[in-house]
Structures are given as C-alpha cells and as structure tokens.
C-alpha cells in the first residue's frame, strides 16, 4: 500500500487527504487507526490535520503516545517518507521527529485563510516538482502555528537547508508583514536532517483542485509520488 493516513480521535482532515490521494491522484491509500500496532507495507505516512485528542494539554502532545506513533518513529528512522500537515506537524514536533515547538498564534486568533508560501528547498521528496523559490497558494487553518525554535536551532535549520516553506507575499516577499501567526523567520514548513520527514502548517489537501481556488497543493502529493517511483 502506497499511502497510509493515520486517524487519531479528533483528526478531521484525514478524509480530505484520502480523497485527494485516491480520487484525484489515483493512488492506493488506506486509513490507519491510531491504536493499530503494525504498519503494513506503506511507502508514505500522512499525519493529517485536525484536533487530535481535542488539543488537550498541548497540540499533538497526547497523540505522541498513541500505539501507532512508535511504529511511525521506526518507519521514519528507516528513511521512509512521513508528512505531517497542521496538527500532524504539531505531533511530529511533540514526538521529536522534527525540532522546535508550536506556540499559540501571535494574534491569539484561529486563522483560516489562503496564504502564500515560498518553496525554499525544492530538493526534498515533498517538493521535487516545485521550482526553487516557487510561490504556492495554500490555506492555513490553525490556532497554534507560531513555530518556535531557539537561536542555535534556527541556525542549524538554515545551515542544513531544513526550512522548506516560508510565509510570503504573492510576489514572494518574506517580511513579517506576511507572517500570519508570528512563526520565527516566517517558517511554514521544515524537514528533518535526513530529509524524509516533513511538517507543514498549510494544508495542501485543501488546495489540490482548482475549484477550491488553488491546486498548488497537488505539487506536494505529486512530488511524493515521483520520489517513490524513482526509488
């Protein structure tokens, strides 16, 4: 099975991801229940958005103790592709598969709108079909998207080209004016050092059909498929 989408209690973007992968992209995909103890022959795992465990304590904090997460950590350590979208990104941070932490949006508001993000690193399994610095129009929908990492950590992210997406203007300006949530350095998505685990706050599955206002999100899913096919 090519794609597996993990469903936690409170996930709410799992069906959207499933639909895009199965109906729009025609790829084999299966849901994985958070209590499952095994991962059967998946090539890519999607941790979808939503409010796993009601966002209790901290976003993503309880999900990290779901039985399936241990298997997903092993899967990631083997170099296989894992993408965490929104709440999925928050779970990857809490699990320690990605560095840093998520704080509440600077404005204290839940923000749900289209934003522009710049592809800073297009040499990843998730962005190989994007041009360098390509600007994508993809929506965000979150209350805790204010990415934080200490100065040393930020230097390290930059040194290893781990910053994949940054919030920007339609023309690609990455100033604070175009930062929707206060995230450090306008960070919208990062990848691990090994380059196989991506976390991003914007929702590519909500922008994968032009009828929704943008299909830029497809580039992310199609990049994964291309990467899997090349292996």
């Amino acid at each position, binding site marked *: 099975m090519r794609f597996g989408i993990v469903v936690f209690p409170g996930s709410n973007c799992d069906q959207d991801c499933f639909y895009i992968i199965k109906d729009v992209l025609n790829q084999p995909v299966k849901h994985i229940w958070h209590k499952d103890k095994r991962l059967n022959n998946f090539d890519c795992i999607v941790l979808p958005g939503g409010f796993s465990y009601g966002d209790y304590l901290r976003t993503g*904090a309880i999900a990290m103790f779901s039985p399936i997460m241990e298997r997903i950590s092993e899967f990631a350590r083997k170099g296989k592709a894992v993408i965490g979208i929104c709440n999925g990104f928050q779970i990857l941070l809490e699990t320690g598969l990605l560095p840093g*932490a998520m704080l509440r949006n600077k404005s204290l508001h839940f923000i749900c709108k289209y934003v522009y993000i710049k592809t800073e690193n297009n040499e990843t399994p998730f962005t190989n079909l994007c041009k360098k610095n390509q600007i994508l129009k993809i929506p965000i929908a979150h209350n805790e998207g204010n990415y934080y990492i200490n100065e040393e950590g930020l230097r390290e992210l930059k040194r290893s080209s781990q910053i994949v997406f940054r919030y920007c203007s339609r023309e690609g300006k990455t100033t604070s004016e175009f930062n929707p949530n*206060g995230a450090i350095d306008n960070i919208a998505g990062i990848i691990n050092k090994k380059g196989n685990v991506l976390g991003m706050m914007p929702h590519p599955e909500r922008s994968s059909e032009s009828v929704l206002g943008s299909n830029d999100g497809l580039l992310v899913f199609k990049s994964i498929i291309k990467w899997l096919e090349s292996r």
Partner: protein
Amino acid sequence: MLEAEIYITLKKTISDPQGLTIKHALASLNYKEVEEVRVGKLITIRLNLKNKKEAQGKLDQMCKKLLANPIIEDYSFQIKGCK
C-alpha cells in the same frame, strides 16, 4: 495520599501574547502599576503515595515526559498531604 500542584509556564525568553493582552486589559481598567503578566497552567494531581521524595521523583518524570514541553515551558510543583 498526597496532592501536587504543578505550575507550567512559558519560558521567560518566549513572548506570551496572552499575558500581553491581559496586561493591556488591566491597564484599561486603570491598573497602571501592572508591569508584566504571564499566563500559565495549573495541574493538580492526587497521588496514591505517602513518601514526598518518591512523589517528587515521579512528578519530575511526568513533567519531563508529558506535562511540560521543555523547549518552550518551565515547570515547578508543590506537594502537600491530603485526605
């Protein structure tokens, strides 16, 4: 039985927009003397333990593993006896 009060706060180096908003609200109520407001969490836990030292060790682990995120938060706790 012991009862613990665990305080979880954002690290001093991390800005706290919630605290800042409350500070502004207090200023608009004329509490000009308010210098800083920081918002945190209070978690109370009742423990089926008698020994405070043992409780301390357990609570420390709980905070490190789950209750606080050491990247952004500090924690402290107080333990007292209860019925």
